[in-house]
């Protein structure tokens, strides 16, 4: 599916400058995409979707004629359930209760799902009326039929009167088996993915009430390994999952994208080698251990071992990475405890919970928009604050409790990954502890202090901002 999202739309949180000045009309994008796909004999293989202030059946009909199979609605749907386009979505201050978590304001919400149904029925009805008026029986018969569109020159004036619409309305020849809309569907090869093998092995073991402890090789065409397995575990054992390390796979090689995505509780993935982007995306209680090939001798603290955007939206679990991670590490983490030996730009952005230890250098914009959780950074050079986005966080000295937490996680890290670099820090914790700094979101700190007075609680573990 290819989405052509027009520049006329935008959320109520987007700045006026972007709304007014960024983007192009979807009409241009969808017609160009559609035509280019036809010229390359590819149109029948994809679904084209468009959005950007679609509101009426007429919009849908035009979008179809210009080449769209699917049509997205945003603003109009929200308006049908009570949005009045206050454009305060980012302020938690929506007076009609649509875009807010404020208890008082939520009470003002009066929308019903039926309103959306009703609205879309009207859109569909108008679309059908238009289709009937031009003698088209189904939406597929309408897609790409630009002969149904004409330019009303009377409505154009001034600068617009000379606009040449012929390229938008151009209809290329269809060659061979291609069509004007999607007719063939892609085989994703789900039957051949590595997870099937994992599930087969797990099934067998669980039948005998045994754990699984197996070694496998992995390569970078094995993507999202662990996702289907986690789904399988979840279906049987629910959200609570299995006891820790019940399912333990040791991989060797280079993992493809999304290694250990959504990994459920009770599953541990150990990887000797490397991994591409998105390691542990949305991890939900599992454990991921990654270290370089045992035969290699390069320094873990100086070499990148996993790609970008790791542990995006992590929910809970543990991660021990003996090496440097790429950019956007642990964005939107809400409960994962992770140890890593260095990160790229934007680490811990929008983080709301969990605990992250970085044993090496960080990129810039660390902790932007971070509203919860804690990060500890080993910063012997004292330059870390230059790399931080201090809008919502502050850097403070660590306390004895923090040292305890760091020691515990470091111990695990050394134990699981065998990192010499981490071992050195751990062994000299008396001296190295002073080089750790703590990153604390301001709002989160207030919250912790308030709850501390009420009851002494262990921070970070379960709090989900």
């Amino acid at each position, binding site marked *: 599916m290819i989405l052509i999202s027009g520049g006329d739309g935008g959320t109520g949180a987007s700045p006026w400058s972007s709304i007014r000045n960024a983007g192009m009309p979807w009409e241009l994008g969808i017609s160009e995409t559609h035509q280019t796909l036809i010229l390359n004999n590819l149109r029948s293989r994809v679904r084209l979707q468009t959005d950007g202030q679609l509101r009426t059946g007429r919009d849908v009909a035009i979008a179809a004629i210009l080449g769209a199979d699917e049509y997205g609605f945003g603003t109009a749907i929200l308006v049908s359930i009570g949005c*009045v386009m*206050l*454009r*305060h979505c980012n302020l938690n201050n929506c*007076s009609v209760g649509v875009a807010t978590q404020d208890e008082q304001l939520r009470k003002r919400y009066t929308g019903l799902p039926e309103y959306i149904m009703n609205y879309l029925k009207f859109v569909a009805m108008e679309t059908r009326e238009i289709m009937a008026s031009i003698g088209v029986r189904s939406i597929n018969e309408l897609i790409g039929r630009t002969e149904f569109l004409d330019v009303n020159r009377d409505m154009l004036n001034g600068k617009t009167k000379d606009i040449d619409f012929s390229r938008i309305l151009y209809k290329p020849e269809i060659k061979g088996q291609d069509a004007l809309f999607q007719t063939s569907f892609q085989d994703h090869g789900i039957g051949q993915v590595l997870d099937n093998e994992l599930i087969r092995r797990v099934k067998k073991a669980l039948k005998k009430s045994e754990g699984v402890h197996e070694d496998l090789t992995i390569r970078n065409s094995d993507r999202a390994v662990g996702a289907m397995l986690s789904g399988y575990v979840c279906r049987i054992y629910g959200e609570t999952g299995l006891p820790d390390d019940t399912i333990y796979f040791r991989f060797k090689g280079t993992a493809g994208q999304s290694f250990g995505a959504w990994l459920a509780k009770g599953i541990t993935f150990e990887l000797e080698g490397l991994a591409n982007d998105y390691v542990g995306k949305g991890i939900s209680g599992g454990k991921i251990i990654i270290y370089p090939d045992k035969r290699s001798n390069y320094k873990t603290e100086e070499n990148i071992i996993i790609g970008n955007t790791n542990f995006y939206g992590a929910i809970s679990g543990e991660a021990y990475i003996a090496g440097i991670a790429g950019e956007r590490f642990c964005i939107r983490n809400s409960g994962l405890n992770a140890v890593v030996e260095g990160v790229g730009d934007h680490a811990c952005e929008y983080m709301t919970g969990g605990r992250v230890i970085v044993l090496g250098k960080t990129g810039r914009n660390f902790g932007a928009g971070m509203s919860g959780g804690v990060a500890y950074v080993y910063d012997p050079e004292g330059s870390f604050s230059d790399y931080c986005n201090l809008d919502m966080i502050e850097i403070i000295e660590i306390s004895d409790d923090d040292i305890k937490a760091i020691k515990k996680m470091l111990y695990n890290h050394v134990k699981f990954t065998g990192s010499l670099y981490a071992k050195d820090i751990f062994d000299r914790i008396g001296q190295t502890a002073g080089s750790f700094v703590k990153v604390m979101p301001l709002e989160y700190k207030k919250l912790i202090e308030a709850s501390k007075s009420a009851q002494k609680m262990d921070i970070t573990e379960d709090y989900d901002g």
Partner: protein
Amino acid sequence: MGDQSGFLKTGRKKTFYRPVCERILDNKEISFPRDTDISEEQASRCMDCGTPFCHWGCPIGNYIPEWNDALYQKQWTRAVDLLHACNNLPEMTGRLCPAPCEYSCVLEINDDPVTIRENELDIIEHAFETGYIKPAPPLKRTGKNIAIIGSGPAGLSCADQLNRAGHTVKIYEKDDKAGGMLRYGIPDFKLEKRLIDRRLDLYIKEGIELVTGVTAGIDVKAEDLLDGFDAVCLAGGAREPWDLMIEGRELNGIYFAMDYLVQSNRRTAGEKIRSEELIDAKGKRVVVIGGGDTGSDCVGTAHRQGASCIVQIELLPKPHEKRNENYPWPLYPMILKTTTSHEEGGEREWSVSTRKFIGREGHVRQLSCVRLDESFREISGSAFTIDADIVFLALGFLGPDHNGIIEDLLISCDERGNVLTGSDFMTSSKKVFCAGDMRRGQSLIVWAISEGRKAAYFIDLFLMGRTNLPFI
């Protein structure tokens, strides 16, 4: 935006009026001026909506969120500049406007709307008090002469706009003082006439010429207007009243509401009225036929004159107290309006039709009425009488007076009798424009201002070929 969540912290403050027992003894303004800090706080309730429906609700598209923000920031001069950018007479609308903007305020959906009207009033009054409002004549004159017929809110705002654009403007007013309905239709307790004089003084100092006591088409001939001016704007209002031609209409003691209000306003202004023309409600039983604003003004005026008993009757059924599904937000709802004059006493009846006036010795003494059901059919056996010494007919207005300028210039009118114009506000007579009630039929002050401003835009465009005036 000032305070993001001001509306959650502060509630809407009601208008404070002087106590009824005190205010009906004089003709002074009935509301208290508001403290500035209350206005600043009330302004914080404005949410600066991404889509400000108040702009849409207001016929002159006032920059409401913008000046509310300025007010909250205590930037009073910025606020009044923003206010004046769209409104030529904010001290009038600030007192008299029914505030369609407040009915379309987003907070009206599930909260109480921002006190837009009162914030507006406070901004302009503060500006006058602190001496910020000074005459600002245009720096350059275009040399074009424009005659404006009528000095009501439409004529005045049209004149003000054109004067700002550098044209030489002359206003002709048939009454002996300028202001139109503002002066003669609205009682002093709602709008003290010194406020009109204050604004007129400003206009005159800015170079607008004002000629009173001159009726266009009679005292000054239409052809002279066409010869002497580059453009003419008719803003003569729509004062021809609806009559009630039923048995007994010829009896003494039955007056048009406007005749009564005009005379009462003249009396308040200190003019002497000849005794045979005098309409005085003192000690009389008064019946007002018609439930609108004009009727309400008659009620308030009669209270102040000491009427012994006042009844106001209306043909239509009693409206709902609250907005119902026929008038969803942000539309202006037809709901029960209890004015300050109604709070001062008297009775109100709805679904009542007057069938005849009963008199003795040539003077009205009773009204014979019936009650109507929802489809305006008489309910049998519902006949009743109301005692009355004076009856005021406040049934609405037919349209403009066709004698005089309209006839003189052979201007075409629509089927309702209003002056017909194109979308450029020009009448069937070239270079003659029309604005206000004369064009759209009797309406609100804020619509008159809107019309005046639009007409000025098109006049400037007509004369200069281009214009920098705002469309509204």
